[in-house]
């Protein structure tokens, strides 16, 4: 333990060992954590339009338009092994052509230290609600929120929130220039 190289080698090996033990400790200490929380989701004015989807197959598909109310406080979820929370709101529904459809309508990134209380009222969806076809009219759609826990080290968990909501689209297309996504910035 006297030459510079052997000292350097020992120091390096010790550093790596300590980092490895700390990382494993962080992983194990939060392994059984469930990260559940309750949220409140509301829907206003759901309508269906029939338009050409230029971002996809350039055919006429159904476009769902609605406004969201989101109310939640997720500050409890941030323990020492949560680096980022990725929230996403999924619209899930069934059509005659597809047995399961899921479209993400809204998402948000909350970093550690940022305020995790969300109160949004009457906001437009962040993403367009295109159907893969023309089957949104009279369709019963379930909106559910979930979060992806990004840890400092460990499992990537997807946790569904308590508190989903359902609504039914009208049975007629709306052709008027009603509120469309991103009309208000």
């Amino acid at each position: 333990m006297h030459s510079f190289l052997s000292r350097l080698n020992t120091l390096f090996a010790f550093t790596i060992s300590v980092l490895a033990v700390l990382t494993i400790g962080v992983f194990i200490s939060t392994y059984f954590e469930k990260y559940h929380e309750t949220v409140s989701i509301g829907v206003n004015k759901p309508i269906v339009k029939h338009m050409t989807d230029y971002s996809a197959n350039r055919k006429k598909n159904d476009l769902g338009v609605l406004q969201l109310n989101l109310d939640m406080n997720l500050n409890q979820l941030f323990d020492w092994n949560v680096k980022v929370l990725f929230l996403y709101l999924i619209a899930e529904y069934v059509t005659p052509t597809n047995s399961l459809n899921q479209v993400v309508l809204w998402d948000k990134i909350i970093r550690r230290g940022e305020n995790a209380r969300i109160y949004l009222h009457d906001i437009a969806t962040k993403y367009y609600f295109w159907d893969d076809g023309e089957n949104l009219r009279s369709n019963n759609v379930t909106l559910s929120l979930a979060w992806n826990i990004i840890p400092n080290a460990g499992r990537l968990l997807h946790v569904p929130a308590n508190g989903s909501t359902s609504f039914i689209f009208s049975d007629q297309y709306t052709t008027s220039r009603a509120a469309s996504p991103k009309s208000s910035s």
Partner: protein
Amino acid sequence: MELFSFVDDIRRMDKRQIIYQILNFGMIISTALMIWKGLIVITASESPIVVVLSGSMEPAFHRGDLLVLTNHREEPIRAGDICVFRIEGREIPIVHRIIKVHEKDDDYVKFLTKGDNNNVDDRGLYAPGQLWLEKKDVIGRARGFVPYIGMVTIIMNDYPQLKYFVLATLGFFVLVHREN
């Protein structure tokens, strides 16, 4: 000089010790290979450990982070999952999030992805004319995360001389090291 005492050691090694060293070397290589192949079987993914190469998933994943993937047939493709996929004809895997899923009765699934840090979905990245991804494009879904470790792989790829130097040095020390 102390540094060159090993040269005398090599000259003193007889045939048995040389064979022992070579077998020792072979054991290390085959153990590493077994661990890797075992991981492939357990996770059902062809590449169960990937390094994040771009910043398109920040602030969740940064360049150099390591992801552990699984790709079991029973795991359904669902929106919100972080999936690592390869586009046909390209060899670099991409780590993005699934934002749209359309699944039929016969288990045929088509889905769309988008990087968290990107403003638009990945249709611009897909092959010309391709609008959706399918199960066959998926290498796996990200289940575990270790930060920073993958930087070693990135540095070794960017500076291949470093990779050869490290491999040569390691091989040299394994061959020459003698149990005293």
